[in-house]
């Protein structure tokens, strides 16, 4: 089969694509910050001793994780205004929907990391007279951070890729713009390839950086 590749078209539309990438990175950045905060709150509250908090939050986390993220997004964009009269623009809706979705995953990562810390580390802290807060700040927090870091980075990459769903509510992120251009130019293969390349050059350096940091931890403390 013959196909006449024409990557010149990608160069012609480079500014549009870069703007899309900018939008994607911005969306992902805000989502990661919001869902990390929300995830930390969920992780901390779930283990609290206040009655009802645990069942309510763990149900919330399970349900949110089980729903396809696209459904969550479309539901928030179209149903929420019908039910509440609250109308938000696409960007805000996507940010909120993705943040809630990702927070459910982040909270599990954080909670698992915190709970994985050996009880003896905590007791040693208590034995020198540390309060609960000091034990968390000086011992459990830093140790959990090392455990949490790899899955955390992994989840951040998923957030970056999930932003491509924003196109469904017409937020001009990278994949959405790539598709718009290909409709206009009849060059979907070139444009989708370009989109993929832009995702790769964004995500792979992050992965490499994460691996480097992880290795540094290991060499410093456990070799």
């Amino acid at each position, binding site marked *: 089969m013959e196909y006449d590749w024409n990557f010149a078209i990608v160069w012609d539309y480079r500014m549009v694509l870069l703007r899309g990438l900018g939008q994607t990175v911005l969306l992902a950045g805000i989502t990661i910050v919001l869902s990390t905060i929300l995830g930390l709150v969920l992780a901390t509250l779930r283990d609290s001793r206040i009655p009802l908090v645990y069942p309510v939050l763990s149900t919330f986390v399970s349900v949110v994780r089980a729903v396809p993220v696209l459904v969550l997004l479309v539901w928030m964009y179209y149903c929420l205004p019908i039910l509440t009269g609250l109308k938000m623009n696409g960007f805000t809706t996507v940010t909120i929907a993705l943040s809630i979705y990702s927070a459910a995953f982040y909270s599990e990562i954080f909670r698992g990391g915190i709970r994985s810390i050996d009880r003896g580390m905590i007791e040693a802290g208590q034995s020198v*007279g540390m309060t609960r807060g000091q034990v968390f700040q000086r011992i459990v927090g830093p140790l959990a951070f090392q455990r949490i870091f790899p899955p955390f980075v992994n989840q951040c990459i998923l957030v970056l890729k999930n932003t491509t769903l924003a196109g469904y509510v017409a937020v001009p992120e990278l994949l959405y713009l790539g598709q718009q251009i290909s409709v206009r130019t009849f060059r979907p293969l070139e444009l989708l390839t370009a989109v993929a390349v832009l995702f790769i050059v964004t995500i792979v350096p992050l992965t490499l950086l994460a691996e480097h940091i992880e290795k540094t931890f290991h060499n410093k403390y456990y*070799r």
Partner: protein
Amino acid sequence: MPLLEVRDLHKSYGALDVLKGIDLTVDPGEIVGFIGASGSGKSTLLRCMNHMEVPTKGIVMLEGEIVGVTHKGDRLVPRPARDLSQQRRKMAMVFQHFNLWPHKTTLENVMEGPVTVQKIPKAEARDRALAALKRVGLKEKADTYPSRLSGGQQQRVGIARALALQPQVILFDEPTSALDPELVNEVLNVIRSLGEDGITLVIVTHEMRFAREVCDKVIFLDEGRVADMGSPDHIFGTTENPRTRAFVQNYFG
């Protein structure tokens, strides 16, 4: 006045009664050993002393103050976290599995208590920590992370961490049970030398020879009760108690 006093101490986990009314005292400068079979409650008793385990009934007194709780009318209520923190600092603990913090160097492990809990200036805490490390013969390992130390060295750092708090008493929870046999002596020698310096020590141990040589008082726990108590000569020699004799004979043949 005794330094430590345990009065009618009970501890149960659900239906399981681990401690069934313990009374004992530890005088300043005394070296007290707890011996007994696994499950006899030795470690639980030690952990109740610094309120790591909350007693079901009864109290522990340190220098005349109740540990972890305080009287409010005729009820006992938990002390503020800060009070408990200060009491724990006076009863440093050395753990069976060392429990050094892997993300801190040897020196940082030892400095942590003085800096974070006692709020001592860093430079002073550093001097104190180095002195404690020197005391256990590991000053040259100050900048090493725990993962690069042998078990015996890790336990000596654990002892230095306790010493740096300048405690009234050090509680040892089976300090050599997790060590390879050839590393046991370096740790026991350090503990012995602390005793010679007059530091008050409470030691849960399976090292009968050590208990006999080093302790001033040996307490034999059996099924959650003090079954026998006395000088090493009494416990390891003249006692009439058949259970003590049976237990001790197991070790010495």
